């Protein structure tokens, strides 16, 4: 299936390890000053194969930084990140990019899609970047899994509704059959009804793919099998099979603890 053998990152059998995303003692400081408050402070976490995890916290808790470090978008100041069995510290920029397009998918809050490409071109982008043939059937299949099809595929992103755009982004994240999908507030810009639909689609389409969602919306956790709470750059607690009501209570408590006036550092 892979046309360009030169760009294949050494494939590690996922089942053997069982945990495509592992963070060990990860610290991230922004700025040069040693005394700068770390955005992430010695965080150790792992995300098992096929797991669907929400990372929650109030603004500035470090949740976006966690996602960036886990996905290799930022280099941690200290600690180890293993993505798909590979220590990211040992990978060149180029091989990290190749790893991303072959084994990782991304969904963001908005501005997910390149405005000058059509929906189908956006969906096929990871394959094209990887010099792979993007068959019509593959694209249509990926789109169909998120409920997009027909004329929508030939439209430009600006012509779609917010929910449709997020579904296109999910289709793009899924097209290369990644091991991990990172989603940063994927439903932040959507109304609750549309948001639930998009998350249901993600949950259904992921099908064995590890999903990490950063959010501050307790409702997201309805679809998750685990909720990780960050506070002040540290893991505060982890809930298995979270229930939105309880998640909301925890978030409120964390908000009370951090007080008001905390700027958004992430």
């Amino acid at each position, binding site marked *: 299936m892979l046309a360009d053998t030169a760009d294949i990152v050494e494939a590690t059998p996922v089942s053997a390890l069982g945990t495509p995303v592992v963070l060990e003692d990860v610290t991230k400081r922004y700025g040069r000053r040693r005394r700068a408050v770390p955005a992430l402070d010695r965080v150790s976490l792992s995300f098992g194969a096929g797991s669907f995890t929400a990372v929650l916290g109030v603004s500035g808790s470090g949740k976006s930084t966690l996602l960036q470090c886990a996905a290799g978008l930022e280099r941690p100041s200290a600690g180890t990140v293993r993505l798909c069995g590979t220590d990211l510290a040992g990978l060149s*920029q180029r091989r990290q990019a190749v790893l991303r397009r072959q084994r990782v998918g991304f969904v963001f809050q908005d501005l997910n899609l*390149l405005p000058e490409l059509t929906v189908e071109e956006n969906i096929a982008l990871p394959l094209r*970047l990887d010099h792979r043939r993007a068959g019509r059937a593959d694209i249509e299949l990926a789109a169909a899994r998120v409920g997009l099809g027909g004329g929508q595929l030939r439209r430009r992103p600006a012509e779609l509704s917010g929910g449709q755009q997020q579904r296109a982004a999910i289709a793009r994240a899924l097209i290369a059959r990644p091991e991990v999908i990172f989603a940063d507030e994927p439903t932040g810009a959507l109304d609750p009804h549309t948001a639930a639909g998009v998350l249901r689609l993600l949950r259904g389409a992921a099908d064995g793919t590890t999903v990490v969602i950063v959010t501050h919306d307790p409702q997201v956790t309805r679809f998750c099998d685990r909720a990780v709470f960050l506070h002040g750059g540290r893991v505060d607690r982890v809930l298995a099979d979270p229930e939105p009501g309880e998640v909301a209570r925890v978030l409120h408590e964390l908000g009370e603890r951090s007080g008001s006036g905390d700027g958004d550092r992430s």
Partner: protein
Amino acid sequence: MRGWMLAGVRRGPGPLIGTVVASAAAAALTVAALSVAIADTSVPAGRLAGTSVVVAGDTSLHVTVGHGDDARQSLPLPAYRGVPAGLAGQLARVPGVAAAAGESGFPGGVVRPGDVDLVAVTAKPGVSPGVLAGRIRAALSSAGHGGRGYTIATGSARGDVADLTAAVERSEGQVLGAALIPPIVTISLFVLAATTGLAVSLRRRRFALLRTVGATRGQVRRVILAELAVCGVAGGALGWLPGLALGGLGTRALAAHQMLPAGSAAWRSPWLLLAACGVSVIVAVLSGQIAARRAGRTSPAQALLQTVAEGKWPSPVRILLGLGAAGGAGTLMAFTFGQKSAAGQLALAFPLLLTCMVAVALLGPVLVAVAAWLARPARAVGGPSARLALAAISAQPRRTASAVIPVALAVAMVGAVYFADASIAHATAAQAGSTVTADRVISGSGANAGLDAAALRQVRALPGVRAAAGVAPVSVAATDPDLEPVYGEAVSGGPLSRVLDLGVTSGSLSALRPGQIAVSALEAAPGAMGVHTGSRVTVYLPDGTPYRATVSALYARSLAAGDVLIPASAVAGHTGTAPGFAQILVSGGSAGGLAGLAAGHPGWHVATRNVANAAAAQAAQDGFVNNLILGLVATLAAVALVNTLVVATVERRRALRLLGRVGASRGQVAAAFGWHALFVTVTGVVTGAAAGAVTLVAVTKAATGSWAPFIPLAPAAGLVLGVGGLVAGAVMIPFWLMSRREPALAAG
């Protein structure tokens, strides 16, 4: 992969329009220069149209200069060498020749006894001119004329022999056309680098997204370069036809100024389309290297941010490079002023200007931050709108710098070119107006005014005349150090020091005897002819005859008088014109005596020194070539300025919308944009003036010897107002168009 890479150009060309426009301008100017450089400059055979073959003495001068492969240099001669009249009879005996006749009286023709300008040969029916020319060549070399070169012309080449000025004019115009191409390309690179840099930085978030989705740095870079290549092709195609039109205009203008033969036609080959596209693709792609590299380095994490602001401050590398360029400019400036020869100083002027511009471009954000700090008092005067504008500038010095830099470059380039020319013209006019110290000047109008040696003798014989000298412009060829035409005067009579104030620096100019030559200090300098008083030099008269002479004087005031003075007797018979003077300069004598003499010569005009000097000063003002170069530079600078500012203004649409939503009135927002435009103009003009002044002073010093450039108020004000107008238009017109579509902006 290729298709999607270019989707940005096809479907979202907005930010790239500027790149297309700028590369179209580069392509148009290059095509114009090329079509002049390769213009069809063949001239009609005229009187020789009925002949098959024309034989003349070699119409070019060949001189061996130094050693090496290109040691042998050639220059077209403005006068015929002449061939013996007997050559016609000799050629008549060549098989296939129907008739051969010596002819004289062509423009540039000789008047030496026993010689003719050329021999016109007609072929017998059935003998082709080419075959006949070959036979004539063989006959001439076997007859022992091998040592003396001939020009044997058939077909369209006969025109060049019929009119020797054609070859001289052609080499001037075509050399100029070719010489303009490198500066056009260099300046276009500057222009495009600013435009592409902005176009790329405005789309940073998209490139970050590409990186997140798994594009490597190289892929992002290639996307941008592919886009730029397409813009280059589009620009080349768009610039081609305007370039052809411009080339046609330029060719006609050059022909009108005797810098191309009359009737020259610009080169209009379809190959020019290829050249246009080639040049604009190369320029676009080269100019985008830095921007593409920077975009490739965009951190993929930026795709997660809501708004991607580029860093407030430029990278330390950029600042270091900028300081390096500023230091380089300083060193180059010291080196330029340290140059002994004016030629050396002039050669360094363009690199000096470029280095200053690089420094300004690199340090732009720092300069903007300094200017914003200095502009703080304006907040009190300008109210909330000025406060808003200044806050936006201080928050994003890099973004503002991308608008200020093209303004500064425009002022630096246009100012340096225009005021350098103005300073030289001013100095020339000043010298022309004071070089002649004779009391009266007789000038002749028409070819047969009769200002000749006999007239000079008559003038000298008038009672009370202390000095009288005849002068006539002459061009000689000299090795300075390359074989080039040098313009000066043929002089007769004297003492010269009583009629001309040439600022003699060594030797004496009281009389110039045969075998002597006076050379200007600029031309005598080490980088040029490299001579001093007493040196032996060889210059070549218009018909190619070498004139070996001793340098008898060096003089400083050469802008009006020319670079060499040669005794008229040495030049007589070698200029292709009847011996005679353009002017006779007279000191002493009475007005009545001269008037009486002039009464017998209808072509004479007697004028006082002041009138003659005023006319000379007027004639010195013709700066056609400089105006041409100025036009090119101003065009490119204006394109860059408008381009960048329009893109930068459109990019502020979000700020505009937000201001409308929080209740700003249309007037307040317009004022904020106006303050922004004012800041950009003032900062750009001041910075550009400083950068241009360095080059201006260097050029003025080199060409006129004075440290003070001449900066007339009206053009200076015109430049500032022109730049201000362009900035205002490029900011306020897009603002007006955008604000009409923002209903949130309250009226008022």
